[in-house]
C-alpha cells in the first residue's frame, strides 16, 4: 500500500469560522494505481492533493505513506518528502519565468544536492521523454501552453518520484493539447508510476483505473473503471 488516509480531516479557519476542506476521509491507494479525483468546485480535491503531496498537514486523522505515519512531520521532513517522493503538476504550470526549460527541470535535483552533470543529464532525459529536446533552452514565455505543461511534467518526473500528483493539468489547455498531456500521463502510468489526477472532465477521468468523487470534503463514490 502506497497511500492510506484514516479519518483524514483538514479544517481551515477563516475569521473564526471553520471550513472543512476534508472531512473524515478514508482512502487507500496501491503502488502503480492511476486514480482520477472528481467533484464540484470547493469539494476538497486540491486540499486532498496538497495533503498527499506534503504541502499541507492534516488537522486530524492519519496519513500513512509507504507504511510510515507521516501525519505530523517537521517542516524539514516535509520538504524532503516533497523533493524525493512527489512530482507535482499544476493547472497553471508554475514554471519559473526567468529560467530556461532545462533550468526549471533541474530545480528538484538542485534541492536534492545532485551534481551539475548528473542534473543536466537527468533534465535532458526528462525533457526528451516529453518530446521537448528541441526546446531545452527556451524560456516559458517562448513556449506554447502545451509545451509549458510538458516542461512541468518533465520537472515532476525528473527525480523519479513514487507519486505523481496532477491538479487539473489540462484546465488551462484546449482539448487537443489536453489530450496530448493526458497521453503523456497514460504512458507514465504504463511505465509503472502511481498517478493521482484531479479533473473536471469525465472523458479525462476515464483514462484512470479508478475514479474517486468528492463532495463537501467527503468521498461520495469510489469506483474502479477498469
Amino acid at each position, binding site marked *: 500500500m502506497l497511500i492510506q488516509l484514516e479519518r483524514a480531516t483538514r479544517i481551515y479557519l477563516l475569521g473564526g469560522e471553520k471550513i472543512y476542506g476534508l472531512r473524515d476521509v478514508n482512502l487507500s491507494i496501491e503502488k502503480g494505481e492511476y486514480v482520477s479525483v472528481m467533484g464540484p468546485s470547493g469539494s476538497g480535491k486540491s486540499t486532498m492533493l*496538497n495533503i498527499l*503531496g506534503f*504541502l*499541507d498537514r492534516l488537522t486530524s486523522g492519519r496519513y500513512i505513506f509507504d507504511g510510515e505515519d507521516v501525519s505530523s512531520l517537521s*517542516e*524539514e521532513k516535509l*520538504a*524532503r518528502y*516533497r*523533493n*524525493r517522493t512527489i512530482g*507535482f503538476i*499544476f493547472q497553471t504550470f*508554475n*514554471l*519559473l519565468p*526567468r*529560467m530556461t526549460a532545462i533550468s526549471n527541470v533541474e*530545480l*528538484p535535483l*538542485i*534541492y*536534492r*544536492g*545532485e*551534481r*551539475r552533470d548528473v*542534473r543536466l543529464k537527468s533534465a535532458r532525459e526528462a525533457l526528451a521523454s516529453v518530446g521537448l529536446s528541441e526546446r531545452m533552452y527556451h524560456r516559458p514565455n517562448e513556449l506554447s501552453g502545451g509545451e509549458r505543461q510538458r516542461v512541468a511534467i518533465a*520537472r515532476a518526473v525528473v527525480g523519479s518520484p513514487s507519486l505523481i500528483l496532477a491538479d487539473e493539468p489540462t484546465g488551462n489547455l484546449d482539448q487537443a493539447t489536453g489530450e496530448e498531456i493526458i497521453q503523456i500521463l497514460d504512458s507514465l502510468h504504463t511505465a509503472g508510476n502511481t498517478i493521482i489526477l484531479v479533473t473536471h472532465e469525465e472523458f479525462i477521468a476515464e483514462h484512470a483505473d479508478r475514479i474517486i468523487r468528492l463532495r463537501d470534503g467527503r468521498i461520495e463514490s469510489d469506483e474502479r473503471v477498469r
Partner: protein
Amino acid sequence: MTYAGVRESFRTAISSLRVRKTRAFLTILGIVIGVATVIAIVSFIAGLDRTVEKEFASIGSSVLYVGKYPWIWTGKWYDYRRRPDITVDIADRLRERLTYAEYVVPEISDNGNVNYRSTTVEDVDIVGTSQDYIYIESAEVKIGRFLSEMENVRKRHSVVLGWGLFEAFGSDQKIVGRRVYIDGRPFKVVGVLARRGKSFGQERDNMAYVPINTFLKYARYKHKSSVNIRVKGRDIAEVGLLREELISTMRIIRGLKGYEENDFSINEMSQLLDMYASQTKNIYLAMVLIGALSLLVGGVGVMNIMLVSVTERTREIGVRKALGARRHDILIQFLIEALVLCWIGGVIGIILGFLIPFLVSAVTEFPFAISIKAVAVGFLFTTGVAIFFGIYPAAKAAKKDPIYALRYE
C-alpha cells in the same frame, strides 16, 4: 545547503536584479556612496601618512627647536608675547655649553626683494642664519661656499643664493663675487646652493641666506626679531638627555628661579606628528561616520527592495517549496540576492573611492596611496549591511506557507 544551490542562487539573484535594473541601481547608490567615502578617505589619509612620514624622516628626529612661541598653543597668546625674545647671543651660549648638541643654529627669516642687474625677484625668503645651517639642513653648495663665522661676527653683507634665484638671474656662474641688492642694500654673493626642492609643500629654492647678525641689523619690526634656534643632537638615542640639558641651560641663561615657569618653548617634530595623528583620527572618525550613515541609508534601501522582491515572488517561493526547497534554501537564496546587490554597490564604491583620490592627486599634488585595508573595510561593511538588512526579508520569504504561496496571484 549544497554548492549547487548556492550557485543557482547567484544565477537567480543576478537575473532577478537584471529585471529591476533601475530600482536596484537607486538602491545601491547609498552603498556606493558609503563605500566610496570610506575608501577615498582611507586612501587620502594613507597617502598623507606616507608623505608626512617621509618628510619627518628626512628632517630627522634629533632636532629640537628653541623659540619664543610653542608650535602647539596651549595658553593665551599674550602670555607668550610677553616672553623675552630669543637672541643670537643665547644661541652662542648654548653652543658653548651643550654637551649633547652637535650643531646649534639660530635662524630668522622675512620676505624681501632681490635685485641683480636688470632682474628683480620679489617675495624671496631671506634667511638670516649662521655657518652650521648648511650641515643641519644637509644642503649642498653648488658654487662658491656657504656663510662663514667671521661674516657673522663682522656683520658682513654677504649672501648665498638658492638655486631658484640663481636661475632667475640667468644661471650666470660669474655671479659669485658680484653684487646683488636685497631691499636696496648691496650684498656680495659668496655662493649658490644646489637645488633643494620642496618640503611640506614649501619651496626651498627661492631663498637667499645672509649672516643672521647682518639680518638683525636691518630687521624691519622690532617685535619680529626673536630668532629660532635649532639644536641638533649628536645621537638620536640621546634626544631625551639633550632636551633636559637644553631646558636647564636655558633656565640658567634666563636666570629663572625654581618656581618660575619656562619663558621659552622647546619644540620638536614629534609634537606635530602627535597632533597630526590626533587630527587625522578625528577626520577619520567623521568620514567613517558619513560612510556608515550612507551605508545605513543604503541598507534600508536594500531591505525595501528585498521586501518588494519577496512579495512579488511569493508564487516562485511556493513553487520552489513544492519542489523540495527547505526553509534555509529559500533564506540563503534571498540573502545571496541581497549580498549580490550590496557587493555590486561595494565594487562600484571601491572603484570610485580609488578613482576620486587618484584623480585629485593627478591634478593637484595631493598624495595618494592605495590601501588594501580600505578594500577589506569596504568589503566587510557591504557584507555586513547585506546580511543585517537582508536577513529579515529573507526570513520572511523562508517562512512562507507553500499552499498560500502557490495560490498567490
